[in-house]
């Protein structure tokens, strides 16, 4: 938690640090890293109820498209909220339909949702279809760091949501639901409501990050915005960092994106081999993700 605070503080002051020639590059990379970490935090929230979602790429994409389409009329911040709202609404409908599905069944149902959504956006006219959709920069490009601080803000919101939820009573309801719905029901946990509410919060956050992403890349296409790759990334990062925690996805996201960027610059061709091996080794030697590094040290201190 202290680590999470330090990371966020660092994100806030990063543009002011004397980074020299690497400044612009770092800010660009950091901005994408923040968004991906935010998405991972959102995914992890839902995972706490035991649901493995592959729909987060779709929530991200819906948020991105909704924000991009409404920004000219509404302005940046309201458009982002619209993006979040659209994602939330879709998650409510999806959640109601898939309420009784668990594990892989839920995962594939959400994957199916993603694929169908992508096709709809691809076939629709007002989204620019397969050709893609040009997007206005945040705040009409008035502030050079506007997009960056939007990304920071989204990351802060995701982190706070994650922290608050793990301190709230909902946290126990979520954990109980994850460990066994039948038992949770007996304990008096309103399982349906817990799952739905978490799903909606999670989707809202994913939609927000999507909107900010759109205003950064300035161009959306269905294959990029709804890519399965992003849904997988949203799941890889929390497992890599440490599931059901706040610091885990946060730290994991920043490290994974930095690692990938660094490898691409250093190695170039075939850099993903190393990336894949890092994932494999992490699982073999750090079964609880990066967070087990800290847990172990903490344990040693207590002993």
């Amino acid at each position: 938690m202290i680590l999470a605070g330090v990371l966020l503080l660092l994100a806030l002051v990063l543009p002011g640090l004397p980074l020299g020639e690497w400044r612009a590059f770092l800010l660009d990379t950091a901005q994408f890293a923040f968004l991906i970490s935010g998405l991972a935090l959102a995914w992890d929230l839902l995972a706490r109820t035991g649901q493995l979602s592959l729909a987060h790429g779709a929530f991200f994409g819906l948020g991105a498209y909704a924000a991009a389409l409404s920004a000219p009329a509404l302005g940046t911040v309201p458009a982002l909220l619209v993006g979040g709202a659209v994602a939330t609404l879709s998650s409510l409908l999806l959640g109601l339909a898939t309420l009784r599905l668990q594990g892989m069944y839920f995962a594939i149902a959400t994957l199916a949702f993603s694929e169908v959504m992508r096709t709809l956006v691809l076939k629709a006219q007002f989204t620019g279809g397969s050709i893609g959709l040009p997007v206005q920069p945040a705040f009409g490009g008035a502030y050079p760091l506007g997009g960056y601080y939007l990304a920071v803000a989204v990351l802060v919101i995701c982190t706070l949501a994650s922290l608050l939820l793990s301190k709230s009573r909902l946290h126990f309801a979520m954990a109980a639901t994850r460990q066994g719905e039948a038992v949770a029901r007996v304990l008096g946990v309103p399982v349906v409501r817990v799952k739905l509410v978490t799903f909606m919060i999670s989707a809202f956050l994913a939609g927000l990050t999507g909107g900010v992403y759109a205003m950064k890349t300035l161009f959306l296409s269905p294959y990029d915005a709804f890519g399965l790759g992003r849904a997988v990334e949203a799941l890889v990062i929390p497992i890599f960092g440490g599931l059901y925690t706040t610091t885990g996805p946060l730290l994991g996201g920043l490290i994974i994106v930095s690692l990938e960027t660094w490898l691409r610059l250093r190695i170039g061709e075939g850099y993903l081999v190393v990336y894949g091996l890092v994932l494999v080794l992490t699982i073999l030697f750090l079964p609880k993700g990066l967070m087990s590094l800290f847990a172990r040290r903490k344990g040693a201190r207590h002993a």
Partner: protein
Amino acid sequence: MDLLLQTLINGILAAGIYALVASGLALAVGVVGIVNFAHGEFSMIGAFVSYLLFVGAGIDPLISLGLAALVLFVVGAITYYGLIRPVLAAPELNQMLLTFGISVALQNIALLLFGADTRVVSTSYQGATITLGGISFGAPPFAAFVLSVGLLGALYWFLGKTRLGFAVRAVAQNRLAPGLLGIETQQIYLLAFGLSAALAGIAGVMLSVMLYASPTVGFAYTLKAFAIIVMAGLGNLRGVVPAAITLALAEAFVSTYVPGGGGWVEAVFFLVIFVALTWRSWRLS
């Protein structure tokens, strides 16, 4: 009438490869309990085995079938022994990240070795056609379908009628009791995972003949294979073929009968799955 028959045949033949890729995956998921994201990469290795033997030694892919199965059985066994076994007791999500990592690494090793190029083999029978009345279809897809059905039949026979197959099913149903019965769970897992990879390898050789070989050839089919085994019900090997046929028929009918339907194929495929899954979940409770 001809159009209807032709569409039915198109759909059923397409289901052959689906079923083959999905059965291998179903073995890994159903018996070993591993959601193997690298299954498509095993197919990719099979496709490259076929391609390299063809280019290097002029060996016909038909002959490579057996060899690829053998190679992939070994690859699968090594993967199981070295990487999967240590995480058998770990949470499902960890296993998924592990196999995802393997998949990324394998795909990119292939990229380093062979480049991103799409490569094709050339045989005399790739375009061969069978014509019956007003209906015509390709000999290779038909052969692939027959081979798939034959292999799956052999697999069902093995699981249903042999002692070893019984042991495999016992392990799949209960992870504790077989040990008490003196069945070596570890060896069964090794066997099941190896078989799973071998089936992927055979599918890969077929892909090299009907489509191409490239580092990404396995990907498209893996996603659909996952969907198929989930629709069949995890661990339900017998459900794989009906599920594959249902989905392939849905695809074929949309493409043939709906204007512009080719653009909706994926959506329809996944919509059918979505409806089947949610409908079943509501009916059961």
